[in-house]
């Protein structure tokens, strides 16, 4: 799906329907429909997100509860502090992704502002700039224990902003399977 969701709630509703449909195995056809091109190509930023991140983090930003950090509805919270904002780009799989600085910037803004909305912080958060991403990705957190580091970052977020409870565990998403 390539359309933007108006509200996080709308997002959640859509995903719940999707989840329910998958869980019930909603009427799969015996043969697949002949391949017809979808109405619109996915925007390149979404293609980049899907191929680099979407397999584990989920096409819609939710995935394996407790095992893969949920992005949808939560990633925006990281914008509350400078440390949180930097953290998202310094993650090794982000910083070292085979994407140009420009595309990586677009992907991160998609993750934070589209998938990860609402965005925390008193004032509207500024999108990442290319210069900022280029600088941050030169210092990937490759030599650090990420679990502990993330916990500290999240503690910092919670101290400054109201953040969803789901941030404190990896995922607040609804399990897709039993």
């Amino acid at each position, binding site marked *: *799906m*390539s359309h933007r969701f108006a509200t996080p709630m709308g997002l959640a509703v859509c995903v719940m329907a999707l989840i329910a449909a*998958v869980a019930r*195995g909603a009427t*799969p*056809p*015996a*043969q*697949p429909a*002949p*391949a017809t*091109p*979808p109405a*619109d*190509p*996915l925007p*390149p930023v*979404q*293609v*980049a997100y*899907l*191929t*680099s*991140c*979407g*397999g*584990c983090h*989920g*096409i819609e930003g*939710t*995935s*394996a*509860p407790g*095992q*893969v950090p949920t992005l949808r509805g939560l990633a925006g919270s990281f914008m509350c502090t400078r440390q949180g904002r930097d953290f998202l780009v310094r993650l090794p*799989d982000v910083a070292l992704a*085979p*994407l*140009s600085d*420009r*595309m990586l910037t677009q992907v991160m803004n998609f993750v934070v502002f589209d998938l990860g909305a609402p965005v925390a912080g008193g004032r509207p958060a500024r999108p990442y700039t290319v210069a900022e991403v280029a600088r941050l990705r030169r210092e990937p957190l490759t030599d650090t224990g990420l679990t502990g580091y993330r916990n500290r970052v999240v503690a910092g977020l919670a101290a400054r902003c109201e953040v969803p409870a789901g941030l404190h565990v990896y995922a607040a998403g609804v*399990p*897709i*399977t*039993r």
Partner: protein
Amino acid sequence: MKRLGVDNWGERLTRRLAGRLSRRSALARLGALLVAAPAFPLLPVQRARAADTNKETDFSREAQTRDDTACNYWRYCGIDGNLCSCCGGSVHSCPPGSQPSPTSWIGSCINPADERSYLIAYRDCCGSSICNKCSCIGTDHEMPMYRPQANNHVIWCIGTNTFEYHCSMAVLVGLAE
């Protein structure tokens, strides 16, 4: 997986102008692209790929679009395992007795019918004894295990309550380009 210059606006524009325009209002789209497309230098990796832009891969050259129980069905360029289409399911549904995994790897395959690149989620069905039918291995742009985003050998049942591999789907996520 192939990322056919998707992060190169200039390159896409050139290809559209070269004659393969979509059915949609081509002029309107071109206009939007011209406004939005800044010029920027390609990284060496992407430069190499841009020079090699065929709308085909070795897999797609041999692929077909009719029979999804055959290994050379166009969506299976990166599948590894048993085809759910042979196991009581379909390319996008798990057979009864198994459950889809929320994690998978997402690759892209070229549909030889329209020579366009589509994102395919190789989502496994987990929980039931192995189907053991229609075993296929597509390794088009498959990456090793240490780059799991594009690897077939991780058992992609993470997020279910089981790791019994039953079969693999090839779910169409969308048109990549």
